[in-house]
Structures are given as structure tokens and as C-alpha cells.
């Protein structure tokens, strides 16, 4: 059996959104990869402007998050798109946008080679995907005794 980041992320997401707005749950069916990709691209452009993230990389990352069951992402995308469903979601007590966007950025960066390169000169970034073993990428800064 292979333990994947995908499975672990799904569990984490499941725990984190237990109390998510029930009213918004039906809106998940409206979800498509397109709006999620736009939302993620917007976050990365604003939060990590020093790298160029290719469109296919963003698509892959967004798809990984959706596959991993990131319900908050689905809610955010609906909210991001406006409309009646967005009003319902905004009225609910959702995770603050600041915290959620930090988590998105963190997940992307630690699953990429972002911290392996000199960001003064290097604008490209390679995304490894969420399916690698968790121990490989959980905390790229951790230092061990052996």
C-alpha cells in the first residue's frame, strides 16, 4: 500500500471542514475545474508574484486539490464567482480567506521546487503533485539527527 499525499490531504481537509456550511453543500455540484483553476491562479499570482506558474501546472494543482476532497476550495470558488450561492456561503461562518489562501500557497510551495532554487534569479517552478509520499515533502525545512 502506498501512502500518498493525496489521501492524507483528503483526511486533513475532511477534518477541517466538518462544520462547513450545510447550505452550501449543494453548490459543490456546480463546481468545474475551470473556476477552480482561475481561483488558484489568482491566489498564486497575488501571493507568489516572483514565479511564473504555467497554466497547466495550475490546472494540475487545482485538480489535485479537488480530487483530494478540498471542500473549502469548492466553496471558495463558488463564492469567488458571485451569485446567489456566493451570498449563502459568505453568510456562513467559513474559514477566513487569509488563512485559507495561506494554506493554498503553502501546499503549492512545499510540493514544488520553490525552496530549492534561488528566487532572485529563477522564475520557473516545478510542481511535484500531491501524490508523492508524505515524508518526502511534508516539511522541507525539517532537520533530522540521521
Amino acid at each position, binding site marked *: 500500500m502506498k501512502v500518498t499525499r493525496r489521501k492524507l490531504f483528503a483526511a486533513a481537509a475532511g477534518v477541517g471542514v466538518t462544520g462547513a456550511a450545510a447550505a452550501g453543500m449543494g453548490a459543490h455540484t456546480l463546481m468545474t475545474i475551470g473556476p477552480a483553476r482561475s481561483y488558484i491562479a489568482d491566489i498564486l499570482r497575488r501571493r507568489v508574484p516572483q514565479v511564473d506558474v504555467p497554466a497547466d501546472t495550475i490546472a494540475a494543482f487545482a485538480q489535485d486539490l479537488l480530487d483530494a476532497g478540498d471542500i473549502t476550495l469548492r466553496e471558495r470558488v463558488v463564492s469567488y464567482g458571485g451569485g446567489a450561492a456566493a451570498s449563502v456561503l459568505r453568510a456562513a461562518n467559513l474559514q477566513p480567506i487569509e488563512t485559507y489562501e495561506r494554506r493554498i500557497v503553502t501546499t503549492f510551495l512545499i510540493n514544488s521546487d520553490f525552496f530549492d532554487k534561488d528566487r532572485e534569479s529563477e522564475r520557473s517552478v516545478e510542481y511535484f503533485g500531491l501524490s508523492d509520499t508524505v515524508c518526502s515533502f511534508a516539511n522541507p525545512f*525539517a532537520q533530522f539527527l540521521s
Partner: protein
Amino acid sequence: MEMFDLVVVGSGFGSLFFVQRFLEKQPKARIAIVEWGRLNDAAWQLENMRNSNIDTSLAHKQKSSEKPWVYTIGVGGGTNCWWGQALRLLPSDFEMRSKYGVLQDWPLSYNDLESYYCDVEETMLIAGSESIAKICPRSRPFPQPPHHMSEPDRILVEAQPDYHFPVTTARASIASDARGRCCSSARCNLCPADAKFTAFNGMREVMGSPQIEWITEAKVTHIIVEAGRAKGVLFQKKGEDLEVYGDLVVLGANAIQSPAILLTSGLDTPATGKGLCEQYACDLEVHLDGVQNFGGGSVSTGLNYLLYDGEHRSEAGAALVNFDNHFRFGLRTEQGRWRETMPLIINVEDAPEDRNRVELTSKGEAFVRHPDVSEYAKKGMDRALKKIDEILAPLPVEEVKFRGFRPTEAHLQCSLRMGKDPETSVVDHLGRHHKVKDLVVVGSAVFATCPPANPSLTVAALARRSADFIAGSKG
């Protein structure tokens, strides 16, 4: 009908460390372990992304408006889901009444437990720094060296050498034959490296002992008592009512289910079920200026005791501050300052109160009433939040953000407290029931008070001590 020397209810820390010592002293003893859950090994848990197939939110009843209580039902109990924080209590935790005039003294001292702490630390391969002996005296070294600390920890160890220490943990700092090395993945309830001590990787001799008969997926409903002595237990398995008998019954379900079993058995002494509590906790995030965090070797790397012990405990609960080494709130998003953030958890001592208790529903199920934490805990939290700056003073702090109270620490305790007075306690210093002979209670239910330190190591040490005394002279 087969008679056992020992009938054990539940298979978490308390039960297994009792059984381990019992078998060391009586190798030929026949033991039945009756476990509500089934055996879900590490592979099953990782594959299914959960510790048990039983939803514990359905295992007891409570008002939905009250705080949740979390525990694992299954072979190995809490050894599966815990995060491996393996802290000793402080000597003063055992003498709160004598020293500070509040709560209760435990009917044993730190010194009574010290050698048992050492024993269970060896079984669990605890990693830690000898420097912590300044506050928790030690007679033996830790089995494993401490984890690599984060940079904020290093600064605080230097500035506050009597209060800040590397974490003591059952997450291995170096690999061994039995376990991998911690990978700092922050998924410790489902450790992907098998680095954290569990019943499966750390107690193989006990788990596989031919002296033990495992009766799993069997929910104990009653203790069988005849002429004031425990004789066995009744349990339900696959719709059948069954029973198993033994010379000694050890009750180690958990701090909700153990009192419920006593209550269904009619063993409703005055203190039974009363005092259920756990640490009162909150999350903080500290933004730093120029200090990089997350370089430690495990999910949590530092413990700060500055707000733990002292005269304030006569009025307000002790506070322990855990320094986390994982992205609880994510990295910062300012260019180049990704790691200049530090998540903290403040754990505050609660006071067991009668209003917070385990009762039974009309159907005989466990029902938890917990209107609120104590004023003692609230004062302790207020004090900790006001004084957190004293701990953080050596660090270049930009901002401290309050990130909310934590719903549960999964440390349920104090519902069958140990003590000398049967009116205010349920068991004695060995966990022996005050009113029923040959009945011993293990687990955090027997804690006399609720200090801020994580309870599992103390549960194991207490259980080992009980077995050490009782195995040689039946309870």
C-alpha cells in the same frame, strides 16, 4: 467455563502497560482482553485514513452544544491516535492541596512514580533532553536523544534554560529495529513512518503473547460482582450476551466508557463519573522578524514551563506552552519571510468539577454532561494570555495572533479519580476500587487532577506501578 487470572476491559495505554508488567511478574498468567473495537493495524489505518472503524461521536451521548470528546475504540486504543507527546507530570502536580491549597493531592508522589516513568519511557523509546530533569527529576537517561530543535527553540533554551526544553516525545528521533525515524509530516495520528510508539510497533511481545486471549468486537456492559468481589465481565458480541470470568478484573476502557460500565453495574459510589475534564487549550500564531521557524525534526519541538508552576496555582490553572514545528496556519506569504511564523498551543490545567460528569441514558448508554470548563481553568488561560509576552521576550516578535480555543485535546480524564476518601474518590493509589475487591481501574480516568501536561505517559506509568504491586499480591 475457562477461568482467567486476569480479565482486562479495553486495550489502550493503561490496559497494555498493566498487562505488560503483570506478565513479567506472572509469565504463566492467563489473560483475557475484552475490546469493544477490532484490530485495525497500521496498514489498515493508513489505507482508510482513520484509526478506527467505529465513530466515537456515536459511542456516547451528549448535548450537541457542548464540547466534543475524542477517543479511539479499537485494539491499542489511544496508542493509535495519540500524537506522541510523552510528558511527565511535575512533582507539584501530585500535591496541589498540600502545596497550593486547591484541588486534591494524589495518593502517591512523583517519587513513587519516577522509576515507572523510566520503565515506560524505555518501552516507548522516548526522545528527550536530560535538561528537563531540572523540573522533572530523572534517575535514568532518555532512550533516545532529543529531536533537532527549531531556531526559536534554540533561542529560548539559551534565554530560559530552566523553563524551555526540547520536546519529550514517543516520535523516534533515530530509527530502530522496531520503528522508523520521525519524518515531521504532522500527521501523527496516522504516522506514515511508523515512528511514533503504538501498541503494534512497541509492545509486540505483549500483543502477540500466547498467554492472552483477545476477545474483540465485544462491548463490555457490566462488571460481574459477587459478595463484594469482581468475578468477571458481561459483554455483547455479535448480538449475543456473553461473559468471561477471572480472578482480577482490570477496567481500562476510557474516562467516559469506564465510569459508564461501573454505573450500569450498579457501582455508583458518590464520585463515580464525576469530574470529567481535560486541558483547556487555545492556538496562537506568532509572527517573527528575521527568525526562521520549522527547522526542527518533529511536529512539535519545544515545551515552555514558565507559566506552569508557582503560587498562582492557588487561584489559576497552570499553563504549558507547546512550540509547534508545522504549518498549522500556513507559511507567511510575504516575499522571503515564509518561515517567520510560529504556531503555539497553550494547554491549561482544568479543575475536576462534579457538574461535569458521565451519566447513563435510559438505555444504559454513556451520557456526558459538560456545561463548561472550570473558572480555575479560565483564570489560568487569562493569565497565560496576559503573560505570553514574558515567554516570547527573547524572540523578535512582530505580532501575536489569537487563533481560537481548541475544541478538544482528546485527553479525557478524572472521572474515576484516585484518592483516599471513598466519598470524593473511586479508587486508591493502585487503581483498586474502594468498594469492590479484585477490581482495578487504569487509564486517565483515575487522575486525581488535570495538569496541563499530556496524560499518556503518566497513564502508562501508573498502570505499570499498579501491576507491579498487584501481580505479586492479588488486588
